[in-house]
Each structure stands twice: as structure tokens, then as C-alpha cells.
């Protein structure tokens, strides 16, 4: 019996998606139908060639803005107490307060102005001519010949350099946040600390009142260079503080490197790179300690908590040789990485940075 052609079932026949009875019918049909036999070979070949499509690893940058959104949206834990009615009532009141705050603090349809500087930058894949607007969740993208500037609410501006892809993640008065997937931005912020944030695949730059340039690739290899004020770069509990005139490299999964002044001796900078990311040993540390100047205590202060415990004493001694140790900072506490001690010392050292 010659049934109708089975073109539409061939893929299912080949990869076992047909019920046994239908598969048998398909076989019987192909025994008599040369056209379907040829087509079956074609489909089999079309399936086989897909072996040439390897699985591609998602870049680390994909996670960056997801994580930010996750932190913003996840539900808060409700305390477990016996008097649930009280908890419920308090929760309702709090929810109302939060909603009222949200409504007041986030005007509907809030947008920031984007001005084209060169070429054809896009917002949400649409080119902007002259000026446009950007909202929360929008991507701003520039090619090799375009750039743009974004007015960040009332607190400053961000220049988006060529070959950059950056997303506006939050635009609230208490949180102005971008996610930089790749490329470079230059931020000029005049606001109290911790209102402006930029997420990258290797961590978050937290503005402490500053001007800076931040670049990264999609994997998180990048550089933060501060020209005014201070920036804190944070990643999973690790923090680097970068003052004006200093820079800090970033690495995927390693977060911020150790900051250094741009005018630091070249040998020091190279040794620092080897120590921070290549885990080079004593030789690199020797060079850093030998070459360090007074203001390079910025680097040494960060090193203190990043080197192995047995090397801390050498770092401490070099810092003590470069500048007097404040009375309230003891060697023992510093080597134990006592938080208050290190903070006290940093406050004194910062006069030289």
C-alpha cells in the first residue's frame, strides 16, 4: 500500500520520536517511495551536521545585572514569632510605608537624558539623534565611532565611550545603578557617598564622591582609574579603596586588585600585577617593599590583608619605616588584621595619599 508522503515525520522517525506503529508505517512507506528515502537521508544528514555547533559558555557579564536585579527584588525574610497577628499587622504597616516610599521616590516613567556626542549611539537598540531618554532596564550601546553622555538624575553624568554596552539598572534617588557589560564609562558624580554604583562581571564600583573611568571586557578583566575623590571597588566581601590619582585592576572571580598610584615606580606596578593575579611569591613582594614610597602605603595598606600571614610582618615593618605608626595602632593588632586598628591606621595614612 502506498500511503501519502511522510516528509513531516522524518525527523521524528530518525530520532525515535514516532510511536512504534507509526515508525513501522514510515518504514513500509519508504520501502516503496524513493523520494522519501532520499529525503530521509537528507534529514539524517541535517541532524548530524549539528555536531559542529559546540556549546558556548555564557560570559560572566551576563550574571552581573541579573544579580543586581535579584538583590533588588528578592523577598525579605519574615521573623518567626509566636504572636503572628502582631507580626502580620506590623508587616502590613511596613508594606504600606514601603509602597508609599516607592511611589514617592520613584516617579512613574522616570527617565534620564542621553545626549549623543559622536556617531550613532543606541538606547534599547534605537539610534539616538541629538538627545534621547533612557529608562530603567534600557541598554545604551556605542560602536567604535560613537559615544554619548547620560545625565544621571541630579547627581552627575556618565560618558559612554566607544565600543561600550551598559545598562541602566536602577534610577532611584537612593540608588543610581548601571551594569557595564563591556567597554568604558567615565563618571562625574557630585553626591553623598554610596548613591552611584556600577556593576561589572568582576565586582561593583561604589562612588564615594568622585570622578573616575572604568573599563571592562565581558569576562571582567578591567581597570578603574580615579581622577577625583574616592571609589570603593567591592567583590564578595573584598574591598579596594581607590583615591584620586590611583588605579586598580579587576579580574573575573578575583574582584578588585590592589590599588596603586599612577605615578608609582614601574617596577612596583609590575610586581604588584604578578603578586595579585599570578600569585607570584617573595620576589614580587620584595620588589614592592623596596620600591614603595611614602604615598605607596596605599598599596601596602591593602597588601597587609591580602598577603599570607607569614609575610604580613614584612609589610607592616616597611610601612612603619616609611611613615610613623599612630600611637593607637599596635603591631600585634595590625598583624591580626583587627578591623578597627586597620581603619584607624588608614585614616592617618590617607593624609599622605
Amino acid at each position, binding site marked *: 500500500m502506498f500511503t501519502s508522503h511522510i516528509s513531516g515525520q522524518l525527523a521524528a522517525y530518525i530520532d525515535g520520536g514516532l510511536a512504534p506503529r507509526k515508525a513501522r508505517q514510515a518504514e513500509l512507506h519508504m520501502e516503496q517511495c524513493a523520494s522519501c528515502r532520499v529525503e530521509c537521508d537528507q534529514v539524517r544528514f541535517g541532524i548530524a*551536521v549539528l555536531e559542529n555547533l559546540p556549546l*558556548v559558555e555564557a560570559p560572566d557579564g551576563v550574571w552581573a545585572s541579573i544579580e543586581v536585579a*535579584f538583590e533588588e527584588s528578592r523577598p525579605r525574610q519574615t521573623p518567626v514569632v509566636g504572636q503572628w497577628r502582631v507580626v502580620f499587622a506590623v508587616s502590613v504597616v511596613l508594606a504600606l510605608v514601603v509602597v508609599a516610599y516607592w511611589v514617592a521616590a520613584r516617579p512613574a516613567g522616570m527617565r534620564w537624558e542621553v545626549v549623543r556626542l559622536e556617531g550613532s549611539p543606541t538606547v534599547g537598540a534605537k539610534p539616538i539623534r541629538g538627545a534621547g531618554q533612557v529608562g530603567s532596564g534600557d541598554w545604551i550601546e556605542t560602536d567604535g565611532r560613537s559615544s554619548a553622555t547620560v545625565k544621571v538624575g541630579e547627581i552627575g553624568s556618565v560618558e559612554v565611550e566607544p565600543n561600550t554596552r551598559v545598562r541602566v539598572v536602577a534610577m532611584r534617588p537612593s540608588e543610581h545603578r548601571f551594569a557595564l557589560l563591556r567597554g568604558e564609562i567615565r563618571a562625574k558624580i557630585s553626591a553623598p557617598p554610596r548613591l552611584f554604583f556600577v556593576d561589572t562581571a568582576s565586582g561593583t564600583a561604589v562612588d564615594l564622591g568622585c570622578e573616575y573611568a572604568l573599563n571592562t571586557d565581558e569576562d571582567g578583566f578591567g581597570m578603574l582609574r580615579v581622577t577625583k575623590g574616592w571609589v570603593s571597588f567591592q567583590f564578595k566581601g573584598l574591598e579596594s579603596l581607590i583615591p584620586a590619582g590611583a588605579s586598580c585592576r579587576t579580574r573575573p572571580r578575583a574582584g578588585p586588585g590592589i590599588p596603586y598610584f599612577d605615578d608609582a615606580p614601574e617596577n612596583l606596578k609590575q610586581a604588584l600585577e604578578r603578586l595579585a593575579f599570578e600569585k607570584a611569591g617573595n620576589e614580587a613582594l620584595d620588589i614592592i617593599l623596596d620600591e614603595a614610597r611614602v604615598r605607596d602605603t596605599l598599596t601596602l595598606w591593602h597588601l597587609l590583608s591580602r598577603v599570607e600571614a607569614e609575610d604580613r610582618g614584612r609589610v607592616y615593618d616597611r610601612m612603619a619605616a616609611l611613615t610613623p605608626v599612630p600611637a593607637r595602632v599596635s603591631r600585634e593588632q595590625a598583624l591580626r588584621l583587627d578591623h578597627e586598628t586597620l581603619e584607624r591606621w588608614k585614616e592617618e595614612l590617607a593624609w599622605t595619599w
Partner: protein
Amino acid sequence: MVHLSDREISAEIIEACRLGDRDAFRALYDAYKDRVYSISLYFFHGDPAAASDVSQQVFLKLMTRIGQFRGDAGFSTWLYRLVVNACMDAARRSKPDVTLSEEFSKPGSPEEDYARAQMANSVRAAVSALPPRFRIAVLLRYFEDLSYEQMAEALDCSMGTVASRLSRGHKILAERLQGLMGAKK
């Protein structure tokens, strides 16, 4: 191809995600990120920016809607429905441009011999040139190995339509790669 049962995400992880557990969500993301990214990458002609964008959209939607997942369908099916919608929506918005990105069409790694690299590029180009509804079906079947029933749910069509799209998609691939057919055999 990886089999679904090997990596179906556990009910505990999904429940933890519903409760806002960041580590659980990261585990879920890690379990699926490469397949979601790869499907998007091959769907969008090797454009890593488009693939990253769609992957982010998918996981952001997943995060906000995971409370709606009731477990009556498999988690993968539900997730890939989001992938299909994101890819097809983006394809509708963008121009019908099938030019492969530079990144995609450059030669393969040094380990790949010349012929293999050429074959790989030809296959990528042929997949890119498939009509979107055939392309997404072919990629979903290849990277996810979903059953026809699951694919029908993810693609929002009948199982017969899934079978037909796959057959036609693979046949078009074979016709476009005719020159390689002898070499492959």
C-alpha cells in the same frame, strides 16, 4: 547532547528560588546558562551582545515569575518557553539580517584543522539562514534534547507541527550544506 533527566533542576532548588535564596538562583542559573546562551548565540547569527541580552532577559523573567511555576510542566519546558518567546520577540523587532558576526565567522581554534573549521562555519551559516521558527526548533532540539511533547509546549504548537518544523529545518540545512554531504558520510 545532554539528557534532560541528568540535569533536571530539583524541586528543592526551585522552592528555594521562590523564597529568594540567592545561592539557589545562582545554582539554577549555572545549570542552564550555557545552553540558554548557546541557543541565543546561534539563533542570533553569532552576535554575543544579542545572546547576552536575551539570556539576561530570560533569567530576569525567570526570577520574577518563578512564583508562577506550579510544577505541572517540567521546569526545562517552562524555562525554554521563555527562551523561545525572548528569541522570537527579538527576531521580530530586528531586521532580517543573516550576516554572521565577525566573531562567529572567524576561523576556529588552532586545534581545529582547516576543513573542520570550514565545516563548522558552513553549518553555523546554514543554521543562521533558517527561518526563525525552524531555527529555534532545531536549536532547542539539539541543545536541550526535549521530547516532542515538551517542545510542543515550549514552542506553543502541536507535536505534529514540531515534527514538521524539525523535518523541514533539517532538510533545508542538508540542502544548503549539500557540498559537505559526501564528506560527512
